[in-house]
């Protein structure tokens, strides 16, 4: 009964000056920051915190992963959908090092996370104690901020700072390492949310000179083009982007992580950028006169050869992170701002009229891409099913409204190319780090974030086996996640490179796979395999109609490559269609 009382009074229990253990202070801090869901894996050095969690089960729902990496990816997807920091707990040593992949992924993809790792007692620090690793040192290059707590008095303030840093400005992961003795010591509990840090300015002051310089370029442009990145989704600027595109009559192309920031069925939408993006936006990057990049960072997979990237264009770069300006591409007008803030101001002063000829050039390129690639892949005449057929069918049957979580490789690029995203923030994928094994645990986090959504994870046979153990989470918490594995018995994307650039020397990319259906059934999850084209539609329908979790393996063609493609080191305008 004491548990229930504690839980009910939690809001009032802030700042009462009670004396509590560090573990309980940590748990209360999470509640104060609005956390209600977390992911993790218990172990020796974090046991006091888990013991405190036991008393707060009503407020804090903890999902137990089966490997700490899985917990991070679930937390990442949860964060991306809810726009709240994803929270993870693990123990010290191996539990903590297993988080590093997720931290690196979240850092590159600007995902807010607060990750808490247990640590050996402070007296043993530096002594190579059992399960001691220097997590602050290890995580420094892959976190926005990190801190080691060794005293109970530090906990409340550091936690407040951690959440503030994770979610403000350009979001990112924060790691808090807490020694076991600090978890058990007691002190007076007083929590105050962080309102600012003197050496950190998350929201830049908008420079109206930059806005008017940008507006001037935009208003005189003949052939402008918008590159929409994840910054649009992070700042919730989808409406502002739409208004901006419509007012200026500017075509919109999305980066991989910017997908779903602009509806794919909008007449101004021209496709995805980058190595496996659409033909038109890549070719026209080197034709446009003004390039308006918003909340994106000119990743090498987007730019190709930077010495031949948009040399003819004036470039406007709106980004909240000043270190991104002129990092990879020299820009003419950098705008230091949150995407929403900048677009709101720009929308007051920009204009444009229909650009028939310019839009037609995108349509012509699309037609060419359709004839050379899309038609062949979505209506394949080959014996085996093509990946594009699966995504095309999934897109149609879900009306482009599912939350799509993808892994890394051919299936990921195919999903990005063929899924027709209707609603904002409905794609979760690993962009910057390219983490195989991301997709399925991400789908778990996405489903938890939005229990009523149709969440579909799409993976390859390689990546699925990297975090396959997370199926147990789907089982334990009865999550209705739909998982598709596009099985070509190869590491398909690497095979593609070997095919195109390594003289077909298929070095260690072929996989002798287990019986996926049997494995998944072992977890008590409904599973099905299809290999015939005529069974595909019904199987996808059955998966979507099924009231719980469902696994669908589709045996797909091995030899198929994802096209078009910008070869590594080539220019965007050298994209190949075959």
């Amino acid at each position, binding site marked *: 009964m004491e548990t229930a009382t504690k839980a009910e009074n939690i809001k009032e229990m802030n700042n009462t000056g009670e004396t509590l253990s560090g573990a309980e202070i940590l748990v209360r801090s999470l509640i104060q920051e609005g956390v209600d869901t977390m992911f993790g894996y218990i172990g020796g050095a974090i046991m006091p915190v888990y013991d405190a969690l036991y008393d707060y089960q009503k407020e804090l729902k903890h999902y137990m992963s089966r490997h700490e990496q899985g917990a991070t990816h679930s937390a990442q997807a949860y964060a991306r959908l809810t726009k709240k920091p994803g929270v993870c707990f693990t123990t010290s040593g191996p539990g903590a090092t297993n988080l590093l992949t997720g931290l690196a992924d979240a850092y590159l993809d600007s995902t807010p996370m607060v990750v808490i790792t247990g640590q050996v007692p402070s007296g043993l620090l530096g002594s190579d104690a059992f399960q001691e690793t220097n997590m602050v040192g290890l995580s*420094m290059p892959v976190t*926005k*901020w990190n801190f*080691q707590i060794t005293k109970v008095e530090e906990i409340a303030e550091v936690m407040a700072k951690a959440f503030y*840093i994770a979610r403000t400005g350009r979001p990112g992961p924060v790691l808090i390492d807490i020694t076991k003795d600090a978890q058990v010591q007691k002190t007076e509990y007083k929590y105050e949310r962080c309102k600012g840090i003197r*050496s950190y300015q998350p929201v830049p002051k908008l420079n109206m000179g930059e806005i008017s310089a940008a507006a001037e370029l935009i208003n005189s442009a003949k052939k402008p083009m918008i590159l929409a990145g994840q910054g649009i989704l992070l700042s919730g600027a989808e409406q502002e982007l739409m208004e901006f595109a419509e007012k200026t009559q500017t075509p919109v192309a999305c980066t991989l992580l910017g997908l779903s920031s602009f509806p794919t069925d909008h007449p101004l939408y021209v496709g995805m950028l980058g190595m496996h993006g659409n033909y038109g936006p890549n070719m026209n990057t080197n034709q446009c006169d003004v390039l308006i990049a918003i909340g994106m960072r000119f990743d090498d997979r987007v730019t190709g050869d930077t010495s031949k990237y948009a040399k003819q264009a004036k470039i406007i770069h709106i980004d909240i992170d000043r*270190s991104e300006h002129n990092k990879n591409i020299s820009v003419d007008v950098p705008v230091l701002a949150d995407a929403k803030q900048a677009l709101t101001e720009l929308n007051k002063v920009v204009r444009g009229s229909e650009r028939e000829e310019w839009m037609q050039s995108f349509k012509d390129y699309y037609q060419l891409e359709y004839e050379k690639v899309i038609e062949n892949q979505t209506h394949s005449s080959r014996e085996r099913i093509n990946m594009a057929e699966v995504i095309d069918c999934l897109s149609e049957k879900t009306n482009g409204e599912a939350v799509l979580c993808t892994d890394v490789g051919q299936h990921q690029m195919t999903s990005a190319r063929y899924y027709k995203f209707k609603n904002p923030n409905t794609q979760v994928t690993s962009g910057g780090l390219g983490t195989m094994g991301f997709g399925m645990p991400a789908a778990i986090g996405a489903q938890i974030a939005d229990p009523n959504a149709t969440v579909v994870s799409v993976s390859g046979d390689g990546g699925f086996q990297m975090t396959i153990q997370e199926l147990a989470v789907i089982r334990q918490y009865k999550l209705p996640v739909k998982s598709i594995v596009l099985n070509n018995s190869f590491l398909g994307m690497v095979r593609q490179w070997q095919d195109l650039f390594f003289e077909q020397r298929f070095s260690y990319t072929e996989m002798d796979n287990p019986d996926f259906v049997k494995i998944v059934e072992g977890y008590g999850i409904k599973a099905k395999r299809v290999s015939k084209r005529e069974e595909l539609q019904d199987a996808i329908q059955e998966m979507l109609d099924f009231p719980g979790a469902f696994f669908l393996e589709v045996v797909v063609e091995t030899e198929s490559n994802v096209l078009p493609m910008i070869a590594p080191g080539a220019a965007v305008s050298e994209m190949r269609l075959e």
Partner: protein
Amino acid sequence: MKEYTITVFSENNIGLLNEVTIVFSRRKINIESLTVSESEVKGISRYTIVAFMDESKVENVVLQLEKIIGVFKALYFEAEEIVHQEVALFKIANSSKLNGNLEALVRNQNAKILTVNPEFLVIEKVGYKAENQQLFNELEQYGVLQFARSGRVAVSCLQKDFTKYLKEFVA
């Protein structure tokens, strides 16, 4: 590749030095010298870092330094934009070899003798790295037991009142 002097103002926190050097090491930029000590404002450290790098990269490096939480400001300078010095200490065995020539040398080089005792004497010189090196070369005939040089310390030729600027952070 050009020589740059980078000044960083940061909180005096554990681990920040590590974060600062990671920005250089991940780009494989060697740090020629690094001096960190408290600035004119208590709690705020001043770094002076000397490194060679491409002109096209120095701004990226400085912005990535500024991105570190705990860093207030990072700036880069070319040689003519700063006034800089190093301190060098030379420990020489006190022996019969020493004569009036040493004293003359010390005086001519604008150095000074800090300590003399029966075993050794210590000479201090403040100057450019090359000047301190020159003195070392000339002292070698007397047998230099130890030669310690500080990293570069520098102030910029900028108009900005940094003392006031830093004080605003702690206000």
